[in-house]
Structures are given as structure tokens and as C-alpha cells.
């Protein structure tokens, strides 16, 4: 008798045990899923920074190419920007680079025919290395750029040391020519400026409009009107960015070209207008939510004191919801900074530091989108674009944190 009871107990024990194990397994699966976003963020940071860091570890010369000077030349090392100036003939004397007073003689592989005839080079250019060697040896002022397969064993010239791109140079450089020869120019300043110009232009346009609409929707409109308008405004957020870009391209760009009488309509202004339209739903929804959170008692107290509806709005509701409105604006800026396709299609993509809204600009995301397809995997250009991605990630991450801080302040105020 007792053994039967025991068995029964054991059986139920097993059952509950099994059930508990199942529950545990399910819980750990759930936990794993919930870790997916955190893991993704960590992976994004890891991959972006690993690939992006490569740009600071390489010389900005294409692999397999070298720069050489005459053996007697005192200049040992040059910065990428100096090399570019040399090859652009902005610097024409070694004196400017700390060497002897001697004119710089530029030499690229294609210049060889200026010095030697085809017969001298051989039918299959088999004497090419010898001739380059000879040329460098007899020209004291030369700076030669050529493939290292033409470098002879008894090479008489001296290979020039090129500085790696420093983080400072990367951030403060004013020229973005990632595929330039002989050395790539990787200054992201024009891209950062372009991004900021377009984004701030957008927010200047969108903030007042968004704020007015939010006030109307939360404080003035009847419930029925609000229920009709709000989904429509949210629909604006659902339109794909490439459609906005297309709309901007066929409507806003020609419009701006006509109004300001410009040679091209693809300008920072066009980007700002398109981005403003895209940022509107974010700003409106978030600031409207903040305004609707104003305690009814506060509004009623204001009205009871004889303030008009309008006075109540700008003396009570707006100050109360200021942090929510700020959050909306910051988030709108964040969206604008990260937006790619629409901006790529309407801003003209000229990598120069803008001085007016009516000139073409190029933003960081647009640069990545436009150039990554042509950049060789793992090459310097590829890595530079990942470094741009890092900058973008840091900016948007910072913006998110800022929004978090602002909204936290608001929720503290409530309690």
C-alpha cells in the first residue's frame, strides 16, 4: 500500500520536475532572444571599429606602389597632404618641404615616354625598371611614383616614407579624395560640415512647423479632427526615404533651381527641405505626446485665474512640456543626420566645405552609400568608409543618450 503511494508521489515528482525543466529551458530561450538587440549593438560597434581602425594603420598609398626620390635628397618623410600638393604642383621646390633649394621634378609611370623612346624601353617594357632606376639616379630633384614591380634590385634611389593618416588629420583634413593618386586624401571635415549644414537647415525649417502642428493637435483641435489628422501625419513617417528622395529630385530640386536661378538645383537647401518633411512626423508626434501629458489641473488652474486659452498654452503647456519638445527636436536631428537615400539623391554630393545653402554638399551617409560599392574590400578606401560609419554611429549614439537624459528629466519632474 505504502509503496503505491510512494510510486505515485515519485510519478508526480517526476512530472513537476520535467515541467520545471521545460520552464527553465523556455525561459533561457526567451532570455537569449532578448539579448539579441544588445548583442547586435555590440557586434555593430565591434565590426565598425575593427574595419574603421584599419585606415589609421596603413599608408595612404595604393598597395604595390611606391614613392621614390634621389638618394641625396634630405627629405625623408612626407605627409599625405604635402604629397598631394607636390603632385598638384602647388609645391614646386624641395625647399618648401625642408630639403635643398631644388626644383621638384614630378614623375609618374606614364611620363616615361618623355625621357625614353619605345625602343629603349624594350618591346615588352623589359628595360622599364632599369630606365626608371637610371632616371632617378640622374635627376636629383625627382619624385617618382610607380609600381614596386618596376623597382630594381640595385635600386639607387630612396623610397620615401609616408606618414600614416592620423586621427587628427582624418577629422580635420579639408579634402576628401579617397581614390586620388598618388596618395589618397581622407579629410572628413567637408563631409561633417555637409551633414551638419543639411541637418540643421532641416531642423530650422521643421521645428516651428512641427511645434505649431503639435500645439494644434494636442490643445486646440477637437477630438475628431485630431483622430483624423494624426494617422495621416504618421503616414508621412511611413513613406520610404527613397520615395522622398525621388520626390525631391523631380519636384524640389527643379523648384529651387528656378527660384534662386542656379545652374544646378541639387543643393544643401534641397536636402534640408526633404529632410524637414521627413523629420516632421517625429517632431510632431513626440512633442504632441509631451503636451498631452500636461496635468489637467495645471491647465484648469491657469484658466480659472482668467488666462485665455492661448495664454495657458504658451505660459503653462509649453514650459511644462519643454523637455519633451526638446527630445522631439533632438530625435528629429538624429534622424536627419543618419538619413541616407533622400539626401544622396538631392544634395549634389560635392565634397567641399559649404559656404552657402545654395551649393551642393555631401553628407557622411551619402558618401558611404555612394562610394562603398566601388571601394575594394579591405582596402584603404573601404576602411575609411567604415571609419565614417563609426563617426556616424558615435553621433547618433550620443544623440540617443541626450534624448534619454532629457526624457528622464521630464519623468522625474512628474513624480
Amino acid at each position, binding site marked *: 500500500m505504502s509503496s503505491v503511494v510512494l510510486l505515485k508521489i515519485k510519478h508526480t515528482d517526476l512530472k513537476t520536475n520535467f515541467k520545471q525543466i521545460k520552464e527553465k529551458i523556455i525561459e533561457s530561450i526567451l*532570455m537569449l532572444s532578448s539579448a539579441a538587440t544588445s548583442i547586435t549593438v555590440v557586434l*555593430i560597434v565591434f565590426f*565598425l571599429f575593427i574595419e574603421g581602425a584599419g585606415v589609421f594603420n596603413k599608408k595612404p598609398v595604393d598597395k604595390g606602389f611606391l614613392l621614390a626620390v634621389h638618394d641625396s635628397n634630405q627629405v625623408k618623410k612626407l605627409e599625405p597632404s604635402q604629397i598631394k600638393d607636390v603632385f598638384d604642383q602647388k609645391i614646386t621646390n624641395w625647399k618648401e618641404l625642408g630639403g635643398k633649394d631644388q626644383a621638384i621634378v614630378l614623375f609618374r609611370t606614364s611620363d616615361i615616354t618623355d625621357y625614353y623612346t619605345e625602343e629603349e624601353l624594350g618591346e615588352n617594357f623589359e628595360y622599364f625598371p632599369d630606365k626608371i632606376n637610371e632616371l632617378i639616379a640622374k635627376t636629383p630633384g625627382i619624385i617618382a611614383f610607380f609600381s614596386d614591380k618596376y623597382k630594381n634590385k640595385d635600386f639607387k634611389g630612396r623610397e620615401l616614407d609616408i606618414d600614416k593618416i592620423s586621427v587628427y588629420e582624418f577629422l580635420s583634413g579639408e579634402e576628401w579624395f579617397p581614390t586620388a593618386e598618388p596618395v589618397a586624401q581622407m579629410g572628413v571635415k567637408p563631409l561633417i560640415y555637409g551633414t551638419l549644414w543639411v541637418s540643421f537647415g532641416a531642423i530650422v525649417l521643421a521645428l516651428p512647423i512641427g511645434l505649431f502642428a503639435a500645439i*494644434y493637435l494636442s490643445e486646440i483641435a477637437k477630438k475628431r479632427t485630431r483622430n483624423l489628422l494624426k494617422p495621416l501625419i504618421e503616414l508621412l513617417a511611413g513613406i520610404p526615404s*527613397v520615395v522622398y528622395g525621388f520626390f525631391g529630385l523631380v519636384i524640389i530640386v527643379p523648384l529651387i533651381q528656378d527660384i534662386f536661378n542656379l545652374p544646378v538645383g541639387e543643393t544643401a537647401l534641397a536636402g534640408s527641405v526633404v529632410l524637414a518633411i521627413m523629420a516632421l512626423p517625429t517632431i510632431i508626434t513626440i512633442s504632441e505626446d509631451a503636451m498631452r501629458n500636461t496635468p489637467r489641473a495645471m491647465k484648469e488652474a491657469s484658466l480659472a485665474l482668467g488666462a485665455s486659452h492661448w495664454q495657458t498654452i504658451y505660459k503653462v503647456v509649453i514650459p511644462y512640456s519643454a523637455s519633451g519638445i526638446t527630445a522631439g527636436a533632438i530625435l528629429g536631428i538624429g534622424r536627419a543626420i543618419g538619413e541616407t537615400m533622400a539626401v544622396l*539623391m538631392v544634395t549634389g554630393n560635392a565634397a567641399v566645405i559649404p559656404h552657402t545653402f545654395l551649393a551642393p554638399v555631401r553628407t557622411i551617409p551619402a558618401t558611404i552609400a555612394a562610394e562603398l560599392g566601388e571601394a575594394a574590400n579591405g582596402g584603404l578606401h573601404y576602411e575609411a568608409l567604415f571609419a565614417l560609419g563609426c563617426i556616424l554611429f558615435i553621433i547618433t549614439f550620443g*544623440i540617443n543618450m541626450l534624448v534619454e537624459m532629457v526624457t528622464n528629466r521630464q519623468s522625474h519632474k512628474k513624480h
Partner: protein
Amino acid sequence: MNVENRLANKKRRSQKVAFGIFSFTSYSVVALLFVILAFIVVKGIGAISWEFISEMPKNGMTEGGIFPAIIGTLCLVLASMIFAFPVGVLAAIYMNEYVKQGWPKKIIKQMTNNLAGVPSIVFGLFGMSLFVNKLGFGDSILAGGLTLGLLVLPVIIRTTEEALKAVDDTFRQASLALGASKWETTSKIVFPIAFPNIITGMILSIGRVSGETAPILFTVAAYFLPKLPTSIFDQAMALPYHLYVISTSGTNIEASRSMAYGTALILIIIVLISNLLANALRKYYGKKVKMN
């Protein structure tokens, strides 16, 4: 008396002006939406025909249809949802049903928010670096689908959480009081009630996925590919990328304008349908739950 009157008048007048401006801007924003929609509908409707949605592009994409792009986008939506929907829903269940307030929840929440704020082009870079190169998927539907899936993961988590939060606590308590375990309660009581709202979130994220361009630029999208993908390791055309290509860098931009309008219209239609469907579902089930 007179002064008071004048003051009151002034007050009333400034209120009238202010309110006028506010309502005007609100209606302008909505009008803007209609202008954009109307413009694309009017210009695009002429391009749309059976041929347009069922044929391959021809003549340097100035004629023919966009069939492979439609199929490509469909594949991408499917691939991303197969990955993101279960993960997102399970994550939301864990966050809402299992963890109490505390630092793990805070961290997960914060990370989800951060992921939602990552620009789409950064997803593209990440997808290219991890899926295409590191894991060796190449430019493929798999790589693009996973990238897009990660992109909408925060959206799905957020909407699912909202849906779960909306389920009344008495359901949970009743179930637990009857001796059901946590998972039984979640899977048999809470989830079915929240399901319509969860589906609403999924439909909205389908709209989002089908319009995203930047993440697929370097992970899957093909410039021109006049055949359908046969496996998840194939490249594919996609509607948003197709629109970008034929409106900016096609062989003959002017000649392909009508194709571009048509493609934009198809994209808009997808977004509109997913929004309307989501709204309708929300309303329908919202009523049903209340009635019971």
C-alpha cells in the same frame, strides 16, 4: 472698463491669430502628404499595367516591367520576418512577462533603443562586414534579409511589448491561480489575446522593410538582374533600390522616368496597404476585445 475691454479684445485677437496659424500649419502638413501622394499617383498610374508588374525590365530599364524587383522585395520581407518576428516576439515576452524591474531590463531596453537609433546606412556597413564578408554569404538574400531583420527588430519588440502590456493583469492572475505555469499562462492566455496587436506591429514593420534602401545597397541589391532568385544565396533586385537606380544613374534617366514613377507608386501602395491594414486590424480587434 474701456481699458479692460480693450485688453480683453487684444487677448482675444492674439489668440485668434495664433490659433489660426496653428491650424493652418497642421492642415499644411497634411496637405503636403496629399501633394506627395497625389503627385506620385497621378504620374505613376499611367505606367502601371499588368505588363509592368509581371515582366522583366527591358532596353536598359526604360521599358518592360519590374517583376524581378517585386519578387526580390517579397523575398527580402520574408527572409527578414522569418528571422526578426520570432526573435522580437520572444524578446518582448521575456521583457514584459518574465523580468521584473531591475538593471538587466534597463540595459536591454537601453540597447534596444540604441539599436533603433542606428542609421540605416550603418546597418548596411555592418551587414556587409559581418554577413557578406566575414560569414561569407556574399551578396545574397540571406545577408540582406538578416540585415533588414536586425533593423526592424526594435520595432517588433516595441510593438509586441505594447501589445502584451495591453493585456489585463487579471487574465494572468486567473490563469496562475488555476495552477498554470508561467509559460502556460503566457503561451495560452496572454499571447492569444495580444496576438492581433502583435500582428499589427509585424505588418507595420513589413512596410518599413520593403522601403529600406541603404541596408540592402551592399548586402543583396543587384543593379539589373533579369532573372528570379532561386536560392537564398542569390542576389536579387529590390523595389527601393530599383527606384534609386533608375532615377539617378540609369543608362537613360529621362526615358526611364515613367518607370520610376510607376515603381514609386508601387512602393507607396505597399506602405499604404500595410498602414491601412494595421489600422483596420487594430480597430477591429480593439472593439472585439472590449465587447467580450
